[in-house]
């Protein structure tokens, strides 16, 4: 009995330690934490364990994405081909950051926290999380808009050395670097951004001191 109590105490203590030490910086408390005391599950605003939207290549996506047309980046000197539409996990980012006010792709969750309900409007009361400018909480959210011509290209395959010697070659042509990933060999928003980790503002994969993030790919 005494041993059991000791074991349970140790188990509880190690769980406590996990929550303190190992977690590091997570989405909790970051600008991507849309939870409030009344809707208190941070993960549920993007992910759901059941009935997820599988048309978006982000894990178990809990939002519908509207049929928005984007204008893609173009360049006369680029040596890889930019597709006509964003692909993969970038669509998950643009689901909010396109700034297009489409109620069912911005506000509704596919599956509500707890016993569920579809579609779900439990995120609606949390207005100040995405619209801080109306609540005295600083500037508006970073909307890129549907015009992506003035943004770093996304959804294009990473150039091979033969295509463009001005790029460093990743260790894995499909998955990129361990700290700057490619997605099926493509650059996507989360190649540079880690939506879950606010420690390198603005949600960067690595610190950009000395432009280190840029120089991971660009040999200039």
């Amino acid at each position, binding site marked *: 009995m005494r041993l059991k109590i000791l074991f*349970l105490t140790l*188990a509880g203590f*190690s*769980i406590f330690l*996990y*929550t303190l030490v*190992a*977690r*590091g910086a*997570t*989405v*909790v408390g970051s600008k991507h934490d849309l*939870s409030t005391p009344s809707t*208190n*599950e*941070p*993960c*549920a605003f993007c*992910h759901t*364990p*059941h*009935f*997820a*939207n*599988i048309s978006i*290549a982000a*894990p*178990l996506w809990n939002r519908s994405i509207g049929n928005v047309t984007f204008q893609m980046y173009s360049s006369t000197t680029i040596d890889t081909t930019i597709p006509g539409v964003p692909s993969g996990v970038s669509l998950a980012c643009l689901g909010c950051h396109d700034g297009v006010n489409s109620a069912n792709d911005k506000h509704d969750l596919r599956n509500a*926290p*707890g*016993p*569920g309900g579809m579609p779900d409007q439990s995120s609606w009361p949390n207005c100040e999380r995405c619209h801080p400018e109306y609540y005295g909480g600083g500037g508006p959210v970073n909307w890129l808009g549907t015009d992506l011509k003035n943004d770093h290209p996304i959804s294009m395959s990473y150039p091979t050395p033969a295509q463009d010697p001005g790029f460093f070659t990743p260790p894995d042509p499909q998955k990129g670097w361990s700290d700057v*990933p490619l*997605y*099926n060999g493509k650059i996507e928003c989360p190649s540079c951004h880690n939506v*879950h*980790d606010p420690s390198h503002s603005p949600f960067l994969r690595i610190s950009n001191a000395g432009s280190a993030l840029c120089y991971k790919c660009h040999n200039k």
Partner: protein
Amino acid sequence: MSHLDCFKFPLVLFVVGLFASPLFGASVVGSKHDMSAAGGEVCVHCHTPHFANTEISAPLWNKKSQNFNFDAFTMYTSPTIDTAIPARPSGISLACLGCHDSVSAPEAATSTYTHYVVNTPGSGLNNSQAYWNSLNCNACHGGHGSPLYKIPAVGPDLTNDHPISMVYPTAAQDPSFYQPPDSQKGWPDLPLFSGKVECATCHNVHDPSKIPFLRMANTGSALCYRCHNK
């Protein structure tokens, strides 16, 4: 009564009270998983003390697997996952999916699977009308004028559901997962099954106190954060 007994009795009462307290949660009795008609046996609709089906690795399982197509499921996939998802559900998840396989029609488990047991209560009932009478139809069906099924069904397409039956990633495979104290059994309150994540890792089918049958409250996404370091 000796001097020592005076201490023992309140202590026993305290321990008994502790077990009966909400700390240990509620039981399946009266929950949505209680499929018994009034006064009927509760456990028998899933478990039997004898002649159990050992093909499904839930304790003493009382359903016949020959009426259940284990290959009917399409599993979750992800380009970024760092562990391998098997081709079909394994272990205890098959027990869950026997009922939660489909929403509009039986896709994996036939009506014979869901409505009959290997071994009926008492003796000699042998899946007769008497066994059917012991079932509460309304536990799974909506009744006249309502949808035929009222249970949440996740299959047979599991591609939009959290992956199951895959081995929990090691720290080397994926550093964004917390490592459990026991690589085979997981955490004391959030179990792995032979080192695998199964439905029953997050869900406690016997305890309705944290809706929907969760192992622990998900306030602050605490259940998610037990594994995911994001």
